[in-house]
């Protein structure tokens, strides 16, 4: 990392987005909550990063990723992903 001028790797969530979601769902499963609440949270957790598919290859996001790496942080940014897949989630 030092050789490459990197000081941080951000967002190590597992092999990929799917494994992050799978891990989050596993964690949710272990939390003591009423079943109905859990079902609702499962839905949110399942889709909460869906917008990343929409934004990862946009021009703005590429620029932001390059800027982040230039600062020494190895991180694929996902700018505005939280709001990027609203209509798809509903569908």
């Amino acid at each position, binding site marked *: 990392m030092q050789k490459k001028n990197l000081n941080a790797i951000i967002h190590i*969530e597992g092999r990929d987005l799917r494994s992050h979601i799978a891990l*989050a769902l596993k964690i*949710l499963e272990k939390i003591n909550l009423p079943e109905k609440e859990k079902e609702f*949270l499962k839905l949110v957790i399942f*889709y*909460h990063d869906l917008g990343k598919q929409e934004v990862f290859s946009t021009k703005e996001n590429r620029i932001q990723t390059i800027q982040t790496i230039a600062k020494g942080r190895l991180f694929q940014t996902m700018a505005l992903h*939280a709001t990027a897949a609203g209509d798809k*989630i*509903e569908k």
Partner: protein
Amino acid sequence: MKFAQKLIENHMNTSILEWKDPTKIVRYFTSLGKNKEEIAETIKRLAQVLHIDYLATENVFLRNGEIEYSKNIKRSDYNFDAVRDKYQSAIRPAEKIERENKIYVERINNCEKDLLQIANHLIPLTAENNEFGNNPDDPQEHSPQRHEFGIITHSKKSIVHFSRRNQYIKDKNIKEKIDSKLQETIDGKTKLELLATAFEFHDIGKFLRNMPTSEAQKIGVDPFPGHEKI
């Protein structure tokens, strides 16, 4: 489904606890629900989602040549009590800012109309004042060496800059002292209201000038002597 979507759309707003602008804070929270209960429910669920997301996320840092694992602290700090307190503590300051803004907006909106009326009433109807009477906001009729704008625009801008005073004062203690003084009242009006009014009318005496500005400049005298006393 709409509620789930709302949570997803807000799951990256984890820096709320660092926000300082009360108006921004209140505006954000009121977008989370129609009433206190809805807002509280949204915060509660968001806190749960962020906590789970936090547990399922890890950062790796290189510190002093050693690899270090850490969590996204912002997400763990986003707990129901802390976020609710942040919202509640911003409500009163935001209301105060809103009340103040109303005063500025009212004064700024009325300024031009008020001062034009006063100018029409005060500028003496003489041949040498013809141009000044036709355009009391002409910068050339003000004192161009000292003022970039005409009397009316200058007065309006003074209210605008008064409203932005906190951007110009760096010392937090001084800001607070000034803000608290401005809340004191005289005859039922806050000093802030009275000062905003004073800024609007502070130069009306200039409409009663002794001689045209261009002439006064030629002979090197002030075109508006004693204007502050009129």
